[in-house]
């Protein structure tokens, strides 16, 4: 019941001010028109859509936590369950990213009769979306207690996510970095969306680990007996 109430509330917050929908439909419009407008091939377009869904989920999840910090204080006191709250946040990220991933892929005109290409294309988009949400979750403190630290953290992670595979000095610790750039480099090298499955799996795992770390970082420490 607690999770159900929170989930409903978070989904309401997610769609509350049209920020998410505006960004989503902008990306869909880009997917529909970019082939003709910019004369780019499917792989290049898909690379840009991957970056697009990363920023879509990052910003819309940040917006969710911003709304949450302004509105939900007393609801959470009533619910009084940190783990129900954490699980609800993860479920919202999962649901919205599945929704975004499917819509973006369908309207990108990359859809093919090759079912495995379609499924892997959607899975990769969802995994990257979850990565964006997990970065926003890890640094949600920017809307609560440590505003500057949260903002700097997001900037650093976004930079590392985009540059991890193209800066040679970082190659030794590449496994530590958000694998967004690795997906794009793999796509450019292998020129096939189906070859992204292992990296998509790694991205999904990376996002899960970030959610897991966040859940312990933000666990409240009560100073009461």
């Amino acid at each position: 019941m607690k999770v159900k109430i929170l989930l409903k509330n978070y989904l309401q917050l997610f769609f509350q001010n049209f920020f998410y929908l505006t960004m989503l439909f902008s990306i869909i419009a880009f997917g529909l028109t970019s082939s003709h407008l910019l004369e780019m091939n499917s792989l290049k377009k898909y690379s840009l859509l991957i970056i697009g869904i990363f920023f879509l989920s990052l910003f819309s999840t940040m917006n969710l936590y911003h709304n949450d910090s302004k509105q939900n204080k007393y609801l959470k006191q009533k619910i009084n369950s940190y783990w129900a709250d954490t699980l609800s946040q993860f479920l919202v990220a999962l649901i919205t990213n599945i929704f975004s991933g499917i819509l973006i892929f369908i309207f990108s005109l990359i859809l093919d009769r090759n079912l495995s290409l379609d499924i892997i294309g959607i899975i990769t988009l969802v995994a990257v979306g979850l990565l964006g949400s997990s970065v926003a979750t890890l640094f949600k403190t920017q809307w609560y207690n440590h505003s500057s630290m949260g903002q700097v953290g997001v900037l650093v992670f976004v930079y590392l996510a985009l540059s991890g595979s193209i800066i040679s000095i970082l190659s030794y610790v590449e496994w530590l970095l958000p694998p967004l750039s690795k997906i794009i480099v793999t796509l450019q090298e292998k020129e096939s969306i189906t070859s992204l499955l292992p990296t998509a799996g790694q991205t999904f795992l990376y996002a899960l680990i970030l959610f897991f770390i966040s859940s312990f970082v933000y666990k409240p420490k009560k100073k009461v007996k």
Partner: protein
Amino acid sequence: MKLISVNDLSLQNEGYFAFKHVAFSLSQNEIIGINGDNGSGKTQLLEAIASGENLDSGTIDYTPGVRIGYMPQDNSQVIDQTVEKYLEDIRSLSRELAVRKEQLSGMITLLGVSPYLDRPVRQLSKGLQRKVDFLAAVAGHPNVLLLDEPFVYQTNKTINNMLTLMQDLKDNGSGIILAATKFETNVSQYLDNNYLLKDNRLDKIQSTTNQETYCLLIFSANPNSVAITSDIERYLVSNMNNLVELELPLALKDSMVEKMTQLNYRLQEVKNLES
């Protein structure tokens, strides 16, 4: 039995103390009032008790099993659900410990919220939203109820009905903390202990309570009178020769007369009693 003990509690915000070395306790069957000017720290104190977080020093001891219902001064949540759905969701959070569904309906009727049950909470006026917040705080049948300025925007009739509900909770073993800038006489009659939060300190002030003053109400029954309900029965002193005598705190007099009139009894006499 003590429900909450606040021990040497201090809280500061960006170098300014909200309150210092606050100590008091709340027991079962007790209503505490906390007075204080705007900005004196009442809200922060209630929030500290409600959440048990972000304290600088001191402790709050919660007796195991304590369930807190909190009505904040300003609830910023935008609630798209209808009043009925929202209150039912909040009630169901406390599962079998919550008030029964029909009890909640009774409270909703008593506070005059019934005509708005199918309206989204966010569309209601501020006064109605405060009533919904009050109902949400009591729907879980908490044994500790924290109310921050609950009577703002309310008519005297609503305030009396809220006080009746609070008295009922108190009689059923709950403890209540009421914070407000000022308590009117009709409210202070219900308080067992009164505190003043001033200059960051919480001091007990001489009780303004009228609780010890009791009255005897004598009603006559007629052929249309309905059987006395269990909530009235506890005040029953005698019931013979078509005369019903009830002994109760003076503060409850008006609401009891209203209830008995609804049950078709006629008030014959009121006697003030010393305890």
